[in-house]
Structure formats: structure tokens, C-alpha cells
């Protein structure tokens, strides 16, 4: 028996019998790939190989309404950005032992564990004897004072591994005065010198509010943010990308490429693939650049061109029709999850439906439809029967229709089917249309991070550690020059207030970090737009294959990032 097991690694079975400790992961069950990733050494930007100091840039402003932002952040507004530069000797004091807390906020993104490992290793290297605490289950962990001390043994199994399960995450926000009070109490009780918030736009806004609050109260706790989101919509000049985007897009692209090969082998299905990204369509655009699908719908373009649902459907039908003329009865279509949020008329429909439903007089015969405006009714009637029913029947606890529950790709398939059916009766189309729907989402959030995400996150963690050690607060860890080799990456921090604007909610100004949308004038979209016609009719599918950790191409960065950095034609 032993000889058979050698082939799959004796520890495959041996590991299973070991009882796991209650907290950390069990590495004995790890696969060969996982095990090799744990010990994968990550390169660091060269600034960490020499003594360094931090220099400040010019004072900053904000993304919009500086006067309002200044009112909201009187202590932090205008902070300069910080940059680590080599120096004769380390100006950042190293004899001080720090107590640092870290929290993961919001949805998972590959690389989160590496940010924590980066902070941990930074403290080990530059502030020996410091302690790092992980708040459990997101911001709620801060409010409830639920945390664990992260030790070298505890952190070890998570190195270069996906997921957020080291300390888990949550979607709670620290908003109300009581909640701020709770956070204040926790960090005071723990005597924290610093807190690192790893999250998306909302979480980083929240981090800045905490920083402002602590500063206003003359507390010593500093707060530094880190840019996380697979959606790729938290970025600016100083923060070139959010972590997790690279890995997630590569996983989705692997699957899309596989579906393309499948489509071409079978020759009879149109695959409609919905991709994550409720607000911005970065993921969809990146996946398109990686795989060259026949049709890609970009929400921002639909919005910009004020396309209606009918337009979107007609465009798809048109391509299918033309492809049929070329003898192709199959294809692959990418759709962003947030598509319908970009269609103004659908927004109109939703708000009218909510009103009608609130009044509660929905009758079987459909008389209630008379309460809709004429054009709104037309849109409603244009929707497939099942979607109509879904809108009317499945409502949230407040009685509102649940747009988020609509499976956009299935809706499009049905609408395309109806249109092609019409063409068939007219005798202008003869093929059989068969749509297959896919949603690629959750399986991309927790994959093993790519070499890029693993390295980027580690540098973000190191950066966050250095900012805290040098007394910075209200900054977001910023690693730049990402198109260059890792050694040449820059490390620093950007004032969170400089990324902010205000939105009016309930009669009050609320600070927000504006989500970065797909820029129709940006290099990634332009490249896509210049090639999509060819992709539509000719089959230029590319199948990137699974993420590789070793060998040629394993260090490749995503197209969006490289195009935005002007590093690729």
C-alpha cells in the first residue's frame, strides 16, 4: 500500500488523519502546488534592500469639492503623499516596538493574506518585538474587540494562498457615533499604534474617517488603507491597481478561453458569460482583451451612448445574424453583472414598478400596468415573461424589486431568442439558436494569487508597515511603477482625502472615493474598440490557459494595467 501512496505523496493521506488546530489552516493536506507556494520567496522593491527615509510631496487637494472635504476632514485634509527613498541610514526609528491591528473588509480578493504577511514581515525586520493583531470578521471585529494575535506559525500556512480565511472579513461599516466610540475603545484598550484597513472604496473612506476621528481625539492610533477589490474600480494615478483584479481576471479568462474552445468544437452554442463587477466593467474589459470574444458589452459604453435594452439586444442579434452568413452558428458573449444598472430606461422602469407595487393594487388581469407610463410599459413588455414574473414576485424585505437578482445573461438569451424567432417567421433567419448561460464570480475571488498579485500585495503590506512606523495616518499604501521589474517599483502612501469627493445623501454631504469607471478614452477600451469588429465576425479566440507559477509568462501582468501604464502598444 505504501508504494502506491508515494505517487501522490504519502502526506496526502497522512495529513488527513491529523486533527487541525482550531485556528490556522492544516498544511498537511496541502497539494503540491499549495505547498510549493508557501515557500515561494517574494521579491521586494529595492528600496527595502537599503536604509530608507520617507519624503513628502506637495500638499494635496481632493478629487472634487475640496472645501467640503476639508470640512469633513479638518485634521487630515491636504496631507502630502509620501514616498520611500534610499538613504544613508534609516531615519525611521527601529527601537520602538509597535502594536498594529489589521482588518480585512468586504469581499474576498486573492492576495489579502499576502498584505498581512507583508506587514508581519516588515515588523519582524524593522521593528522587532512588535505585535500584529488580526481583527476577526471584518470591521465588526474592531467594534466588538474580536481579534487574535498573529504569530509567525499562525501566518505561515497562508503565505501566497487565496482567500481571507486567516482572519475572515465582513461587510459591516463603522458609521454611527456609537460605533466610532466602540472602535475607539477597542484600539485604546489594545493600545494600538496603528491599524491597517484592507478594503475597497467604501472601506478606505471608512479608514480615513477613523483616522480623522483618532487624530481629532489626539489618540496615537494611526490608520493606513490598502487597495483591495477584484472589480478593479479602486485606482488612481498613485494607486495603479487594486489587488485581486489580476488573479480574478486570469481565472475568468481561463474559463472563458475554455468555453471558447468548447464552443468552436461543438459549433452549436452561443455562450453568454456574466462576469462580476456590479459598478464598473473593468473585469469584463480585461477578460475581453485576454480572450477576444465575439461580443463584449461594456456598461460604461452603454451608458455613454444611452443605449436601450432593445439596442443592446439588436446589436447581439445583428452579430449572430452576420456570423450565420459566414457559416458560424456559435459564439461567446461577455456581459458585466451590472449591465442593467447602466440602462437609464430600466432604472425608470424599476422606480415606477416600486411605486406601483408599493400601492399594492396588482391584479391578475394586468390592469395595474395602466399605472405605468406608456414608454415604461413598452420596456416592461419587452422583457421576457420570466423576468417580468421575477420582478413582480421576488422582492426584498422593503417590497422593492430586486434588480440585483436578475440574471442578466439569461435575460439577454431570452430576448435574443425572441428576436431571432421573429426573424425566423419572417424567413430571414434559418439557424437554430441555442444559448448557454454562465456566471463566473465566486470561483475567481479566492484562487491562489498570481505571482503579480502575490508580490504586489506583499509590497503593499511592507509599504503599510513603513508608513505606520514613520507616523503617517490617513494614507493609502501605494506601490507604483508596476510595469517595471519589481526592484524598480516605488513604495509610498497617498492621502485618502485626495481621492475623495462628496455625494449628497439624505441632505448631508458624505465623503466618497469615486469608483474608477472604464474610461472610453482610456487605452484599454480603445484597444478593445479597435479590434472588436474583427473579433465579432472572425474567430480570433485566445485561450490564456491556467495561471502558471513557474516558467515563461508566469510573471505577466494584466492587459488593463499595462495599457494604462502605457507599457504596451
Amino acid at each position, binding site marked *: 500500500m505504501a508504494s*502506491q501512496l508515494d*505517487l*501522490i505523496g504519502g502526506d496526502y*493521506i497522512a*495529513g*488527513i488523519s491529523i486533527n487541525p488546530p482550531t485556528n490556522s489552516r492544516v498544511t498537511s*493536506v*496541502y*497539494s*503540491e*502546488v*499549495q*505547498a*510549493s507556494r508557501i515557500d515561494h520567496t517574494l521579491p521586494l522593491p529595492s528600496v527595502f534592500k537599503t536604509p530608507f527615509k520617507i519624503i513628502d510631496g506637495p500638499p494635496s487637494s481632493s478629487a472634487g469639492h475640496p472645501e467640503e472635504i476639508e470640512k469633513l476632514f479638518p485634521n487630515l485634509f491636504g496631507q502630502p503623499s509620501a514616498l520611500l527613498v534610499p538613504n544613508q541610514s534609516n531615519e525611521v526609528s527601529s527601537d520602538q516596538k509597535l502594536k498594529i491591528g489589521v482588518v480585512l473588509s468586504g*469581499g*474576498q480578493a486573492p492576495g489579502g493574506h499576502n498584505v498581512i504577511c507583508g506587514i508581519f514581515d516588515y515588523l519582524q525586520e524593522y521593528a522587532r518585538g512588535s505585535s500584529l493583531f488580526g481583527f476577526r*470578521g471584518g470591521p465588526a471585529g474592531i467594534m466588538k474587540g474580536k481579534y487574535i494575535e498573529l504569530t509567525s506559525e499562525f501566518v505561515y500556512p497562508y503565505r501566497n*494562498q*487565496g*482567500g481571507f*480565511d486567516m482572519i*475572515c*472579513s465582513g461587510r459591516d461599516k463603522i458609521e454611527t457615533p456609537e460605533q466610532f466610540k466602540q472602535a475607539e475603545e477597542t484600539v485604546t484598550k489594545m493600545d494600538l499604534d496603528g491599524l491597517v484597513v484592507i478594503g475597497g472604496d467604501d472601506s478606505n473612506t471608512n479608514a480615513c474617517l477613523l483616522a480623522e476621528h483618532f487624530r481629532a481625539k489626539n489618540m496615537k492610533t494611526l490608520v493606513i488603507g490598502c487597495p483591495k477589490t477584484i472589480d478593479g474600480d479602486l485606482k488612481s494615478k498613485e494607486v495603479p491597481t487594486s489587488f485581486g483584479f489580476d488573479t480574478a481576471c486570469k*481565472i475568468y479568462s481561463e*474559463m472563458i478561453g*475554455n*468555453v*471558447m*474552445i*468548447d*464552443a*468552436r*468544437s*461543438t*459549433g452549436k452554442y452561443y455562450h453568454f458569460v456574466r462576469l462580476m463587477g456590479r459598478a464598473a466593467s473593468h473585469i469584463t474589459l480585461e477578460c475581453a482583451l485576454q480572450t*477576444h470574444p465575439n461580443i463584449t458589452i461594456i456598461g460604461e459604453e452603454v451608458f455613454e451612448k444611452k443605449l436601450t435594452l432593445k439596442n443592446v439586444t439588436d446589436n447581439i442579434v445583428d452579430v449572430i445574424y452576420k456570423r450565420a452568413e459566414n*457559416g*458560424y452558428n456559435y459564439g461567446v458573449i461577455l456581459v458585466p453583472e451590472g449591465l442593467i444598472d447602466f440602462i437609464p430606461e430600466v432604472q425608470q422602469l424599476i422606480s415606477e414598478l416600486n411605486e406601483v407595487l408599493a400601492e399594492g393594487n396588482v391584479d391578475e388581469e394586468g390592469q395595474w400596468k395602466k399605472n405605468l407610463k406608456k414608454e415604461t410599459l413598452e420596456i416592461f413588455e419587452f422583457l421576457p415573461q420570466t423576468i417580468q414574473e421575477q420582478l413582480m414576485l421576488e422582492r426584498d424585505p422593503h417590497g422593492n424589486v430586486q434588480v440585483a437578482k436578475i440574471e442578466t445573461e439569461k435575460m439577454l438569451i431570452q430576448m435574443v431568442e425572441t428576436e431571432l424567432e421573429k426573424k425566423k417567421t419572417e424567413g430571414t433567419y434559418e439557424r437554430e439558436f441555442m444559448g*448557454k448561460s*454562465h456566471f463566473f464570480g*465566486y*470561483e475567481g*475571488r*479566492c*484562487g*491562489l494569487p498570481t505571482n503579480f498579485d502575490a508580490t504586489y500585495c506583499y509590497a503593499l503590506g511592507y509599504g503599510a508597515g513603513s508608513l505606520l512606523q514613520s507616523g503617517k495616518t490617513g494614507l493609502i499604501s501605494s506601490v507604483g511603477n508596476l510595469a517595471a521589474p519589481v526592484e524598480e517599483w516605488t513604495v509610498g502612501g497617498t492621502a485618502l482625502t485626495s481621492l475623495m469627493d462628496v455625494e449628497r445623501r439624505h441632505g448631508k454631504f458624505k465623503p466618497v472615493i469615486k469608483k474608477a469607471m472604464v474610461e472610453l478614452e482610456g487605452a484599454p477600451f480603445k484597444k478593445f474598440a479597435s479590434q472588436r469588429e474583427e473579433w465579432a465576425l472572425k*474567430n480570433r479566440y*485566445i*485561450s*490564456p*490557459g*491556467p*495561471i*502558471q*507559477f*513557474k*516558467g*515563461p*509568462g508566469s510573471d*505577466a501582468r494584466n492587459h488593463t494595467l499595462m495599457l494604462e501604464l502605457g507599457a504596451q502598444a
Partner: protein
Amino acid sequence: MDSDFGIPRELSPLQQLRSQYHPELPPCLQGTTVRVELGDGTTVAKAGDAHIIARAFPHTLGQPLAHFLRATAKVADAQIITEHPVKRVGIVFCGRQAPGGHNVVWGLYEALKVHNAKNTLLGFLGGSEGLFAQKTLEITDEVLQTYKNQGGYDMLGRTKDQIRTTEQVNAALKACTDLKLDSLVIIGGVTSNTDAAHLAEFFAEAKCSTKVVGVPVTINGDLKNQFVEANVGFDTTCKVNSQLISNICTDALSAEKYYYFVRLMGRKHSHVALECTLQSHPNMVILGEEVTASKLTIFDIIKQICDAVQARAEQDKNHGVILIPEGLVESIPELYALLKEIHGLLKEGVQVDNISTQLSSWSSALFEFLPPFIKKQLLLHPESDDSAQLSQIETEKLLAYLVETEMNKRLKEGTYKGKKFNAICHFFGYQARGSLPSKFDCDYAYVLGHVCYHILAAGLNGYMATVTNLKSPVNKWKCGAAPISAMMTVKRWSQNSGSTTIGRPVIHPASVDLKGKAYDLLRQNAQKFLMEDMYRNPGPVQYDGPGADAKAVSLCVEDQDYMGKIKKLQEYLDQVRTIVKPGCSQDVLKAALSVMASVTDVLTTISSSSTSGQQFA
């Protein structure tokens, strides 16, 4: 059938890298000599089927096993073929695509060219329909360029894929005759290889000189028997699925609030689900074979899941991952009965809208109980092999829905005190079967391609190419061929009147062996998987460095190499013959007689009990 099969593809950097990879050959296939040793004639798996199968295969039943030997092997009666007259060979993809299929073509092509540069390989475009219509593409280095080690079947394409009706069989015969083919190689799973065997017999009967060869290629992993250890495509599919499942396990563990129900493509049997479980350690898997063996109803299954959810909640775990093979719906007795009734009515031409009113009272009650989305899917027409459209029936959603209903009930009653039950459903199918093949599948398929050449050089008809000892490195692989008819069994159905209907001899898909080592490994660990979240992530398929040489767990734990053992037995028998030759001493003869008598007794007892013990569900 589209016009873009076989044209050069644009390759991604990784695909380009892979197209440069050249699999190695086991020693027995190296060089330009074919050395074949024909063993004893084969028998069928079930003695009771013998006469029925014999009737269907007068020409091709009982043919011997063939072993291909290395040039240096010293075997007395091995046939050594050094002359390689020009051959014309046709090859066709039959059935669903599986990663690695292209490498069979490549392997065969290389073997053909190595042995005689004038040999020709014709690929049929668009699967079996291309065969009938004689649409061919001559395989050349140029054509192969961008398909080596690549996924999909898009070099030649595929269609509906059966070669069974008189019309189809005649069209195949005509194609082979018109194109003057010495051999026809059929790449596919259980149905296609069954068709290959019947076609071989038909050709022999018709005195057509074309020899038919089958190659075991299917993601389902259900073409398994004494002779066949693994199928091309299974390894890759399971790895890709396992990667995704593992990501989802990590997601569940990180978010701590969802139960993921993941349905896996793999047809009737649960090989894919079992392998993925062994690779990624999800909390639960519902194997169709277990359900059948324990005759579990849908309510039993729901109760099992709900009890698990509750037990986990008591340990403050409100997340989990549950795998469901797509064939499960056909393993649950009452759902299967319902499906059969529906299919019967559809066959009679009853309109879909009227079916619910014509069901028997049992089935009708069950049908009415089911949520609307699943009703619609159950009403779909069955596939050509009479099974339900498994990929279209969202069993994972049905289970999630029923578990949610039950958990809400328990929550209300106060028996369940965890978080509100939240389910997310997934179906992994298309995204895995079009994948870039793993190193194992590339190697295995390429070697099988070479084996095909050796089969046709030896003039064998109705054989399947086999490579055994697969869990060892390539240089230890053993190559051979087995008559496909020896893998066949016959199904018997008892009718209500008491009479039995006897089916046509076919290769039945193998079910997961509940006495096998792979299943045993699962059972030993099921409780830990369930409660302790010991998730394992095989990671994305690697081609370089750690993990690149990983093989399926179920392949590695099973005790295989049947072909090797048969060969070993042959050697013993030969030795006995040499030692106990006339003229040997009395003592030797006496000892031999007594040992042989007891060996024969033991074997007679064992083989009679194993044939009666084996039954098909």
C-alpha cells in the same frame, strides 16, 4: 459543421509554449519495429452473457489480448513486424470533447510517418456526420501545428455522434471503402466504442478490409474495466473542476455565510465527483452510486444535508460546500421513475403541457411538489441514448431549495439555531471540458495514438488501444490492445408480466466501485471533510515545476495493471510448462498435480460466485 475546423489557431503565450512540448514514448513503442505478443483468447466479464455476445460478434469475439513489446524483449512467440506497407487511416472524434483528444491524432500521425512516410491519415470533419458524408482533412505537420497539446476537438469537430442505425453503418462502410481505408480509428467514450465494436463486426461480416480501432477518450471517466485504467480528458477535467471547487471552499471559509451547491458534469456515474472530492476535500458529496445502493429518496438526502448543516452550525460553522454529480437525478429512485414516465409520455407524443395530467398518482404527487423551474427541466426530451438531459436539469438548485425550506422550518421550530441558511449554486461543465490538457492527458493521449498504429500494423480489428500501469512514470507504461467485445455486458429488464427483455451487448458505463480503494479513502475521511474544513487546493493546472506531474488520486490509489498481471500469469504458466515437461521427475509431476488441483478448485469457486454476484442496476 462549420468551415473553420483545422485551420491554424491564434495561440496564447502559454498555448504556444505547450505546442512545443513533445511527450515521450514508453520503451515498448520506440523504434520502427512493431513487436506484438498475442495472449490467450479473451472471455466476457459475465459468463451468463457469453452466448448472447457471441451471437452478436461471430467474427470478433474471443480474440486474444495483444501486448506491444520493446525491441529487446525476448518472447518466443512474439510477432515481429518490420515491413510497413503503405497504410491509409481515417480518424474521427465521436461524442463530447475531452481535453487531450487532439494528441491521439498527433500520436497516430507521428507513428504512421515514422514507419512509412507514405502513410496517410485522414481526419473526418465534423464527427460521425463527416464520416458519413466523407468530409475529410488530410492531417499534416502544418495542420497539427497549432493543435498539439491543445484542448477541445476543434481541429476536426464533432457532431451528434452515433454510428448505429443501418443507414449510418452503411454510410460508414461506404466511406471506408470509397476512401480505401486500411483502418478507422474512433475516438470516444462508452457509446462510441460500443459502436466501434459493432462496426468492426459489421465490416468483418461484409468482408470490408478496414479494421476498426477504438480509443478511450471521455471526461466522464466511466469507460473503466479490467483492460482500461483511465480515459483521456478525465484528469484535466477533474483538475480544473477541483481548482474551482477549492476556490469556492476558500470563499465559503472566508465569507462564513454561504453553502455552495456545486453540480459537476460527468453523466450518469459519479467518477468526476468522487475524484474532485478527493482532490479538494469539500464538506460533502452525494454520490449517485451510494444513493442507489442505499435506495435513498430525495427526502433522505435532504435530511442528510440538513442534519449536516445543523451539526456544523452547532460548531459555529455556517458555511460549506456540497458536490453533486449531474447524474444524481437519475439515481434517486422516485425522480428516476418520474423521469421514465415523462419520457414514456413524450415518446407517445403527448404534448409537454399535458404531461402533468397524465402521470400516475405517485409521480403526479411528486411532480406537483417540485418547484416550477425544475418541472420545466424534467419535461425536456431525453437524449439520443435515452438518458435525461442531465446538463440541463439543475439538481443543485432543487436540493438547495429543498434544504432551505427545511432549514427555515427547523429555524422556526427552534431545532436549528444557526444563521439563516444561504445557498449559492454552480454548475461546472463547459469551462472544464474545453481546457488545455494536463501533462498527463497530453502524454496518455499521445501514447494511445501510437498504440493505434501498432494495432493496425498487427492487423487487429475491433480492438481498443490500452495503456496500463498509468500511475507509474511514462517509461514504465505498458501498451497493448483488448478486443472491445470482451468489455461488453448485456442488460436484462424484467417486465411487469415476468418476462425479461434482453438488451444489445454494449460497454456499460462503469459505476463508482463502492468496494474500491478510492471510495474507501473517501469513506475514511468523510466525517473529517464534513466537520473540519480540511480544504485542499490543487491549484491551477501547472505545466512546469511543482504539481506539473500530479495525477488523479483515484488512479493512484487503485490497484491496477490488470493487463500486466495477466501477462505475469502467462509467464507463470509458461514456466510450469517448461518445468513439467514429459521426462520430468515423478516428484515434480506429483507436486504440480496437487498444486494445480487446488488452484483449479479455488478459481472455480471464486469465479462462479463473482459472476453471480455482479449485477447491473
